[in-house]
């Protein structure tokens, strides 16, 4: 369908069918789903009118998972089976979870740091990906009921500072929930879209996004519908949760509660802490009253709160400085600061951020909903509902990607804040005579030592011909797609030995895990896989046919040769006939055949479009 974009307006041959698309903000504390309804992007409420779905899942034996407010009620009575803040565990190993200082009150299964951390629940062992999939499923259901139809695709937001493992885990959760992911979108970019389109903004903007468990700062240039991320920085384990925790710790100190209090007491304390924090957004003093097992009465003042949270806020300012440096800007260049995430409601956060950027931040948009709304706007465009839309998002990778070299050092291949998609190749050589294999260790992070970076994957290139050390030429190519996901391939140049992997996070799912989980899931067991595959092939065939027809109509007369056109036309007619049948393989073959025939035509079209773009002319001026 994309060929339509470079054909003359009004000549789009293919009638477009509106596709149902949605944006999902999968948050640490709350999640939302939004969609475009009657031209307006809005978040979708549940039957009771709640827009926010608490990101909490409750598991009980032999019963389907309960998600949201209903699950929240179990938080105090059944904490081990009630999973909250699971986003903090995505793409992380148990060791990471313990060392980040995050105390999560769950029953983890010790697995020697292998694979993902699993949580023991009454409904069986659950991985963070499965828990997230249950949240996504609830949102999917809400959207499909509200919009009265099947979702054709979704845009899911992730913190800009999420590394490859965390992104991959999020995408896996969506696959598990049976969602078609059009794009993973960075949360601050989504907020910028919602804000920028709403205000008709132009210039350089800073998006400060302090969510429940993650912090991001992004510097964007908005220019005629293009949202160009200039730099991003953050901390994927810092958020409003930490503020609650430091308040809770203070209460524990004041009330003489032991550090090793039981799970449900900690949960209770966190609730009390959150309420106190929220009270102080509008009041001067928050009274605190502990009841039940431990009785204590006290109050939290602004002064006390500030003392507790200033170190945390300070931790967000350092990334702000780094992002400004990376963008090559000073605070004077920033036109406005947009605040996103529930934690930015706190007056102290606004004050400190205002101090750093030397102007007061913008707070006139709902910091909870803006990310989902931005995601819905992009989902609508990516689904193809607005072929003439000018909007385009140019995003970056948040952390440098590198390879381990001699001495445990990381050699950076793609530096942080490089615009995606990007591909970079680098040559390495053998260091022993007759070496026939090479282990490639891919890492992400800014530190010099591999040990201090995140390990993404290891793979082996075998079959290198025996040569003197230093004479083999191994070319490693890193490619990061528009979702920010990495794939790596390696070739020995003198012989062409090739090895390729799509990076799977070290703490994530192994190949086949998703398939197995899909099979396990009851809902999908009932699904008629064969029917689905056939429909997918037919949709693909339609898309190829429509795109090709539109293309030929637009420029076939000068980009195609007579003989070439006849061949393509014959293949197109064949595909039209075959796709009405039920032979999936035949349809696939016919698509491939047509695809091969039109390869050079597609390249000529792309070149011609590029040619027009750099000439600064639009199609209608030709």
């Amino acid at each position, binding site marked *: 369908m994309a060929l339509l974009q470079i054909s003359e307006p009004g000549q789009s041959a293919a009638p477009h069918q509106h596709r149902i698309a949605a944006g999902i903000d999968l948050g640490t504390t709350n999640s939302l789903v939004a969609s475009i309804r009657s031209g307006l992007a809005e978040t979708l409420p549940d039957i009771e009118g709640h827009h926010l779905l608490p990101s909490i899942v409750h598991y009980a034996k032999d019963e389907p998972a309960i998600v949201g407010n209903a699950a929240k009620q179990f938080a105090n009575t059944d904490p081990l089976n009630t999973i909250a803040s699971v986003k903090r565990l995505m793409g992380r190993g148990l060791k990471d979870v313990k060392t980040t200082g995050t105390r999560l009150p769950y029953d983890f299964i010790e697995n020697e740091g292998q694979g993902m951390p699993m949580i023991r629940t009454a409904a069986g062992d659950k991985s963070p990906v499965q828990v997230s999939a249950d949240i996504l499923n609830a949102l999917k259901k809400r959207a499909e009921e509200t919009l009265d139809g099947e979702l054709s695709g979704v845009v899911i937001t992730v913190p800009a500072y999420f590394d490859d493992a965390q992104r991959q885990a999020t995408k896996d959760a969506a696959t598990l929930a049976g969602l078609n992911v059009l794009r993973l979108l960075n949360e601050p970019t989504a907020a910028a879209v919602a804000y920028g389109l709403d205000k008709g903004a132009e210039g350089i903007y800073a998006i400060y996004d302090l969510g429940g468990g993650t912090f991001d700062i992004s510097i964007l240039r908005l220019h005629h519908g293009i949202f160009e991320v200039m730099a991003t920085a953050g901390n994927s384990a810092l958020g409003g949760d930490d503020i609650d925790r430091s308040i809770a710790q203070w209460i524990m100190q004041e009330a003489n509660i032991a550090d090793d209090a039981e799970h449900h007491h900690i949960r209770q304390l966190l609730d009390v802490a959150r309420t106190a924090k929220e009270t102080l957004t509008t009041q001067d003093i928050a009274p605190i009253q502990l009841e039940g097992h431990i009785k204590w009465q006290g109050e939290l003042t602004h002064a006390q709160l500030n003392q507790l949270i200033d170190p945390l806020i300070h931790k967000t300012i*350092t990334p702000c400085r780094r992002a400004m440096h990376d963008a090559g800007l000073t605070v004077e260049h920033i036109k406005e600061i947009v605040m996103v995430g529930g934690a930015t409601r706190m007056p102290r956060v606004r004050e400190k951020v205002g101090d750093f950027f030397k102007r007061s931040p913008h707070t006139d948009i709902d910091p909870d909903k803006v990310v989902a709304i931005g995601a819905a706007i992009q989902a609508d465009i990516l689904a193809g509902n607005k072929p003439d839309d000018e909007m385009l998002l*140019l995003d970056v990778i948040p952390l440098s990607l590198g390879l381990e070299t001699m001495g445990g050092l990381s050699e950076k291949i793609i530096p942080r804040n490089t615009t995606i998609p990007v591909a970079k190749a680098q040559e390495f050589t053998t260091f022993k005579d007759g070496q026939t294999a090479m282990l490639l260790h891919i890492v992400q992070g800014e530190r010099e030592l591999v040990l201090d970076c995140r390990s993404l994957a290891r793979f082996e290139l075998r079959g290198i011909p025996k040569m003197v050390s230093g004479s083999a030429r191994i070319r490693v190519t890193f490619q990061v797609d528009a979702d920010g996901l990495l794939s790596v391939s390696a070739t020995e140049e003198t012989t062409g030995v090739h090895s390729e992997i799509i990076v799977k996070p070290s703490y994530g799912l192994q190949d086949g895990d998703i398939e197995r989980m899909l099979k396990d899931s009851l809902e999908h067991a009932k699904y008629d896989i064969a029917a689905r595959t056939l429909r997918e092939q037919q949709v693909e065939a339609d898309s190829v046919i429509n795109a090709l027809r539109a293309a030929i109509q637009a420029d076939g007369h000068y980009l195609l040769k007579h003989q070439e056109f006849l061949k393509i036309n014959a293949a197109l007619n064949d595909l039209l006939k075959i796709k009405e049948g039920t032979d999936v393989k035949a349809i696939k073959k016919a698509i491939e055949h047509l695809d091969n025939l039109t390869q050079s035509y597609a390249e000529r079209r*792309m070149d011609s479009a590029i040619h027009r773009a750099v000439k600064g002319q639009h199609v209608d001026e030709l």
Partner: protein
Amino acid sequence: MNHFEVFNLPVSFEIDTDNLAQRYRDLQRVVHPDKYVNAPDRERRLAMQKAVQVNEAFQILKNPLNRGLYILQLQGIDTNDNSAMDSEFLIEQMDLREELADLREKTQPFNALSNFINRLEKNKTFLIDILSQQFAQKEYQLALESTKKFQFFKRLHEEALSLEEDFF
């Protein structure tokens, strides 16, 4: 196709960065993978390749040091060549490094560090001027020297900035 040709621009160190950015955006509107989400696989791959090429070219041309090095490479000059640097320059670098190391020990380093960073930034502007003269006169060997100096200053600048982050 070289990186200048991607933007339909002549090979030149002098570049109007606003114009370059405009051409970059115009190209991205045509080739970005988001425009091809529902397209057949082959077109998606093609768009991906082109978008990668455009990003790579932009990354190199928008930055004066990368642009300079790239022009030298187009001239067939080995930019990785490790021949000796002029010793006066090296001594100057050593002094600057010592100065930076001393800043670490100071109790109130913030202002001194800002001054230090400002000096480095002035130096950078100065080197860009020199480079553009050298390229205008096709003095490629001299330009190669200047790019090497530029790299020294760049590393020092990065270290100073990360020190600033540590202090903060």
